[in-house]
């Protein structure tokens, strides 16, 4: 959804924070042994909307990262392109309609990391700097790159 106001607010939020360091990016992450390959923006959105669950023949299990509000908002703005309210509504409706479960979410970064490490099909999004200390994690692709001030 092209919610200009939301985007404007997020932009202000991002601009006002110190996260816009030149090397700060949001990356798509999986277990280092994964066979999941780079996804197109639309395929990634489909995965997180519950519309697709495979990358070629490889199953994908999306996991939401709620450990950092700004990170999650960047993800919503650049990948899902919907407001948080709208995205949650679509996921809930999917459960109410079809009985499928919503993508799991984690507030704890450590638990999230363990979950990603536990299954080669799990994917999530993180700040690039958070991946550097985890040799068991693999960056599949950059999904947002912060611009230099």
């Amino acid at each position, binding site marked *: *959804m092209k919610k200009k106001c*939301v985007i404007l607010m997020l932009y202000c939020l991002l601009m006002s924070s110190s996260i816009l360091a030149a090397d700060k990016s949001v990356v798509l992450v999986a277990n280092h042994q994964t066979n999941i390959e780079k996804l197109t923006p639309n395929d990634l959105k489909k995965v997180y909307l519950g519309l697709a669950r495979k990358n070629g023949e490889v199953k994908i299990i999306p996991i939401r990262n709620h450990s950092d509000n700004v990170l999650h908002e960047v993800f919503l703005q650049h990948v899902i392109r919907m407001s948080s309210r709208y995205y949650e509504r679509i996921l809930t*409706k999917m459960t109410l309609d079809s009985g499928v*479960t*919503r993508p*799991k979410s984690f507030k704890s970064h450590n638990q999230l990391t363990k979950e990603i490490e536990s299954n080669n099909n799990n994917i999530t999004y993180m700040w690039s700097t958070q991946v550097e200390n985890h040799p068991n994690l693999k960056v599949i692709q950059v999904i947002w790159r912060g611009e230099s001030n």
Partner: protein
Amino acid sequence: MVLSSISSTIARAASQDRPYEILLFPSAHIEVRPDADESDHKAFELEIASGAVYSWKYKNFRNIGEAYISNHEMELERLQFGRQFPKQTLLWLGRLHTPLGFWNSEYHHGLHLQSSVHRPGIVEYEDAGGILPNHVIGMLLRKNQNIGSSIVNVSFAFGSAAKIKDRELSSFNLDFESGFADSRHLTARIYFQPDELDELKYGIFYSQSTIPTDTNNLDKVRQKIFGAYTYQNWLAFNLTAATYYVNNDLNFINKTQESNFLSNYIHLEYEVTGDWMLYTRWEFSKGADNDAYLKLLDHDFSDKILGGVRLDFTRRQAISSEISRRSIDDDTHAHISIQWSAIFP
């Protein structure tokens, strides 16, 4: 504190790798009618309620149960068992929501999902003064067909739905009360979604019901509904518009009387920010004032204009305030509503 404890228990369960989901939809709702005639309507009403939904999936099999409990009623809303077939086809059996238009499928009892406090009158629940069947015991078949990046969705529901009892439309519940033997219902709906990654939709639907009655000399009502709807969004605006043409044949013992009316609503939302939303809705009808079918029912079916504001003060909780003006014949009444709604986890 109790809610928080229940919520965290459910959240812990949901965070495990399990093929099920449990959702709670608690709400509290205050309704004030400043100019209420005490003989007809209460001037003040409070409803505290919660919907509870579980969904469960095993291989291609699905199960959804939904209960609704409030200080006025307790109901097993849905109990449905499904099987997923290839080519995006899903078959459900049980007590289901009919795919009658947009609102009934999109929001139903998930109050937190809809922006407004009230549903449009034409799709109001049967036990809250609704005039059309929106639950069915039977089957529901749903199929998605991708055409490029577009989706065509076809839904077909069939079964027993409603009867008229004590001047109210009464839906077929899982207590299997008698009197529904002659109740028949069918709804077919097709919608087109130009982009599967967007929510824009255009839909048409048709419904046909046989509604037995306990009214003197009136055996049954044969009802046909033709309708269309659209859901649009651009910039920060979301628009839902729907039209329902309702045709009834009232089968009295010695004659048949026909009645027709048209009911429409236009619902517009403006997302001021990610948290604040303004909305307005206009519900208007033609031919409903002296409609013979509507006169069989005690509840008022009114034209309505409303406006409201919703604040999502956390990711899972919202508060909405709404004022509406309802017109029945030459009378107008104001309603003021305030509602807290939430979804956990």
